[in-house]
């Protein structure tokens, strides 16, 4: 088997802060092959966006460093590569959809021109303009002809989000890194966009790294799911298996807390507490202070990877026992 398209190999990331370097990702091990799709899920602040931004090293080197392991994209070690190599990777090999579309779009450039720029077509002609409009139509933007001539501030949040998707898809990348690509979209448009991603996978053989907090979205689009918690992968396995038979107590809590229509409406099922911030990670298991099944030993040493089932494991030594009960 050849090298995968994208791999995180024990990747550890540190960021520069006022009080020195701060570890934010810790020993991430993940792979995405050509045409495969992997979903990264986890609570707010768990490190999903930082993982996504590391794929083509969108973080500047004076601000971010890889202290051990590596991220490899199409054979290139992105934290060792120069800016020129990275620019070649961005767009053509890996396209990005950013979590905050308004900040990712150029406020002074028309939407259509931004699509053309992604295609590296700098001298717009009629035919090229039509190509840009086609991409806007494909991501489900009504009246694409008019939208192409508008500026980002004239678009609603959901339209902006779809515009960034068009910009990322237009160069037909081998990998789409999509950070919360449907948060601003209502269910009807969301279904349409997910359909489009599935289609792009089937027709272009495009691989997908999907970052999402919405477990409802994961099903049907991702082959595998990785659950992130406090800078670590705590569970990883085939999507259906992870959702139906989660191993880690954290994943079980995530799956259980999805709000449903018509639920008793006194309180939504919140998992008490929140993800500890980088720099405040507890020793031992990082979830142990919030874990309903924590034992004394959980606070002592960092739990090793527990490959409990075929291609499905978790960072919890008691995963299978608890899941069985």
């Amino acid at each position, binding site marked *: 088997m050849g090298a995968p398209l994208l791999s995180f190999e024990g990747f550890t990331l540190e960021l520069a802060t006022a009080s020195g370097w701060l570890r934010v990702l810790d020993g991430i091990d993940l792979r995405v092959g050509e045409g495969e799709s992997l979903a990264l899920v986890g609570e707010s602040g768990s490190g999903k966006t930082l993982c996504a931004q590391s794929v083509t090293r969108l973080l500047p080197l004076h601000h971010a460093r890889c202290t051990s392991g590596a991220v490899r994209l199409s054979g290139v070690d992105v934290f060792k590569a120069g800016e020129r190599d990275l620019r070649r990777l961005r767009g053509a090999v890996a396209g990005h959809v950013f979590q905050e579309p*308004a900040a990712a779009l150029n406020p002074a450039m028309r939407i259509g021109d931004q699509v053309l720029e992604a295609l590296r077509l700098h001298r717009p002609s009629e035919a090229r303009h039509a190509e840009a409009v086609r991409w806007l139509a494909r991501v489900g933007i*009504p009246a694409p002809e008019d939208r192409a001539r508008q500026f980002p501030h004239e678009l609603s949040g*959901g339209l902006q989000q779809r515009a960034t998707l068009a910009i990322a898809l237009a160069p037909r990348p081998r990998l789409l890194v999509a950070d919360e690509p449907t948060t601003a979209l209502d269910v009807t448009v969301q279904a349409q966009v997910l359909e489009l991603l599935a289609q792009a996978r089937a027709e272009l053989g495009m691989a997908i790294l999907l970052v999402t907090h919405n477990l409802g979205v994961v099903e049907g689009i991702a082959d595998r799911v990785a659950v992130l918690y406090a800078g670590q992968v705590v569970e990883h396995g085939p999507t259906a298996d992870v959702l139906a038979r989660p191993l880690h107590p954290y994943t079980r809590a995530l799956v259980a807390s999805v709000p*449903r229509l018509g639920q008793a409406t006194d309180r939504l099922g919140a998992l008490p507490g929140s993800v500890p911030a980088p720099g405040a990670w507890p020793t031992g298991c990082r979830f142990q202070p919030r874990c309903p099944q924590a034992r004394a030993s959980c606070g002592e040493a960092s739990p090793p990877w527990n490959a409990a089932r075929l291609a499905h494991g978790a960072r919890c030594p008691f995963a299978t026992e608890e899941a069985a009960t």
Partner: protein
Amino acid sequence: MKALLAVEDVRMLYPARPDAWGRPRAWLHAVDGVSLRVDAGEVVGLVGESGCGKSTLGRIVAGLEKPTRGVVRWDGLDVTGRAGTPGLQMVFQDSSGALDPRWTVAQIVAEPWLARGRRMSRAELRQEAAALLAEVGLDEGALDRFPHAFSGGQRQRIGIARALAARPRMLVCDEVVSALDVSVQALVVNLLARLRGERGLAMVFISHDLAVVEHLSQRIVVMYLGRLVEEGPSRDVCSRPLHPYTQALLAAVPEPGRPRSRAPVQGEAPSPLAPPTGCPFHPRCPLASARCRAEMPAWRESSPGRWVACHEAAADVSQRGP
């Protein structure tokens, strides 16, 4: 009773398709003839498709934009197009643009206190700011950092903390929980529900997530292409939707374990630049008749408190499930 907020027949047109001289050749109807009232302590959920005019209506309510036509009243006073109404705060859909990047989180959260001339020591300020941040699930370490050093969902919560610091009587929340995972979402929604109960905080809660809206609001208003299509008590709207569009929205709510219906609303989303004749939903409506294609349905009260704009929504809806 006098409404805390009353929006009366508001319309917002934006210029579009500029000619060579930059003069508009068409007008985009972002909001068209919308009326809405919110009483003190009441939470009204505003739902609808992407681009249907929710944020525009929110900005009009908050006085950040002056509508082309119509009036916004706060406590009976005309405040149309006037921002900074005391007691009214807005939390924006775009969290990155809403926070000043040069300010620390402590400064951002404390700004409403200092602006109101509250005298407090540095220690007091930090303590109160930290307490507020804790309510939205952020720890004390956040105080001295700048907005860029946070995750998207964390920034969204800083925006909420800042708005709550002003102790508003009403909050306009624009997609404030859509960027949050279920657990943090529950934390924030439970916090807002508690403030509604304890302080009588009123809200216009904009979201495309019907499950959250149903949970938090007493009343739901559904918009389609700049217009209201349905309104009623939350429970009723979610359990017995009258308008075919609301029915489709409900049928498409994704849940783990329940396969998503793939194309919940058939047909292409219409353009607000060229709205269809008659009922704006007719090109995608399974019930559309000749009348729907020709005539705009009136906004009518089908039963007490239940409003709908549809020719076909019969008095008896039980025969037609979503």
